[in-house]
């Protein structure tokens, strides 16, 4: 399988804790950009950026409008906006209607990423108490990308990964530690998806 160009991770209730277990393990230099769309209250502001940045070797940035998408960086979708990607590999923000009662909506970003990166996408869907992201993960899979869900039994809220599983067959079902190992292996080019 060809090498992937972007990793996109979605999650809702419980997902910040999962990312706190994963991101600190990643090295400073990571070969592809990682985009995080985690539901959270807009009033939290960029606190998540501060939380993650203090514990991670890899830079974690909250997305600003038209920010370019680079490797060696984790990008956080800001609260209150949908996150889209442009053809020139930069971000656009969008304050339009909520989708799946969510803004940012994971489906919206997954669909936008597939539109630009086609089959060069690794999609990961984590714990959450709604069904946002399931459709987008199916689209990633149907477009030739690689898909992972957090195992429902390790999810604080299994509804989100289960919703995905009910409409598609993910390539892998992993617990947070295994997701962390999967990502670390990408830096060593030993993962199943880009072997």
């Amino acid at each position: 399988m060809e090498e992937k160009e972007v990793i996109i991770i979605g999650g809702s209730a419980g997902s910040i804790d999962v990312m706190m277990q994963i991101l600190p393990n990643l090295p400073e230099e990571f070969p592809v950009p990682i985009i995080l769309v985690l539901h959270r209250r807009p009033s939290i502001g960029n606190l998540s950026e501060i939380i993650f940045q203090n514990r991670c070797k890899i830079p974690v940035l909250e997305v600003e409008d038209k920010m370019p998408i680079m490797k060696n960086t984790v990008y956080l979708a800001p609260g209150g906006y949908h996150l889209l990607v442009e053809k020139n590999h930069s971000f656009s923000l969008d304050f339009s209607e909520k989708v799946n009662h969510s803004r940012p909506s994971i489906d919206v970003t997954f669909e936008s990423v597939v539109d630009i990166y086609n089959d060069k996408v690794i999609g990961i869907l984590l714990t959450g108490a709604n069904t946002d992201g399931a459709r987008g993960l199916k689209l990633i899979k149907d477009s030739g990308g690689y898909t992972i869900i957090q195992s429902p039994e390790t999810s604080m809220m299994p509804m989100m990964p289960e919703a995905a599983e009910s409409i598609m067959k993910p390539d892998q079902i992993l617990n947070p530690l295994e997701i962390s190992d999967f990502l670390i292996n990408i830096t060593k080019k030993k993962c199943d998806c880009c072997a």
Partner: protein
Amino acid sequence: MNNEAINIINDNEVELLTDHIFKRYGYDFSDYSQASFKRRINRVMQNFKIPSFAELDHKVIENEQFFNVFIEEVTVNVTEMFRDPAFYKVLRKEVIPQLSTYPLIRIWHAGCSTGEEVYSMAILLKEAGLLERTLLYATDINQQVLEKAASMSFPLDNMKEYTENYINCGGLFDFSDYYVAQYGKAVFLEEFRNRMVFSPHNLVLDQSFNEFNLILCRNVLIYFNRDLQNKVIKLFSDSLPVLGYLALGNKESISFSSVADNFETINKQERIWRKKK
């Protein structure tokens, strides 16, 4: 689960439609953010059950009434009163006291949509005792939303959320004193409307039309590409005297623009600048 359609229209077709719209109606969408614009078009096609690009193209070009609906649907008109209470807190504490030194205060809400932010501003001004000597110019590309904004009435269901926002931004009065509930609508007081001027204005094509002490343009530039953003920020700079304020949305910036040096930062977090030269 949502049924949002995946792309029905491709990039070439977006370009073609953009070209046809410009030639037929003079609206120029070529420097809009492509990701967002394409998504909005797909959404229109899905909502109006338009199965193909050919049919959409025909409808938009041949049917002006539909084109007006199309414009309303592809331009984002999501807004609320006192959105981002922290922003209004800074307006109240840092900007409005400075504005009070002018005998006549002119404010421009560029891309005002259905007007929620204009009424929010008017409330702040009233509470500062400045409403009587302020003119609020509110413009949008879209005539339909301007009519809604000018009607003074908003869905009553939204008032609970707006009241919370109002309190969170330091509002000290009873928010419900500012409107009258009528048949599911909250109709705002005439005294606010009397200080507002609503007018169509296209940020892409139109020039500066006045000088303002404060320009607010929040979450409009995100729908434009960098070239058009730069052009619009320059238009704002040309429409501000020295010491005039510019306020953008929480994730928008002027730092990349050719006129960035004309401004000093007043509040980094809330994206407020002041013209210094």
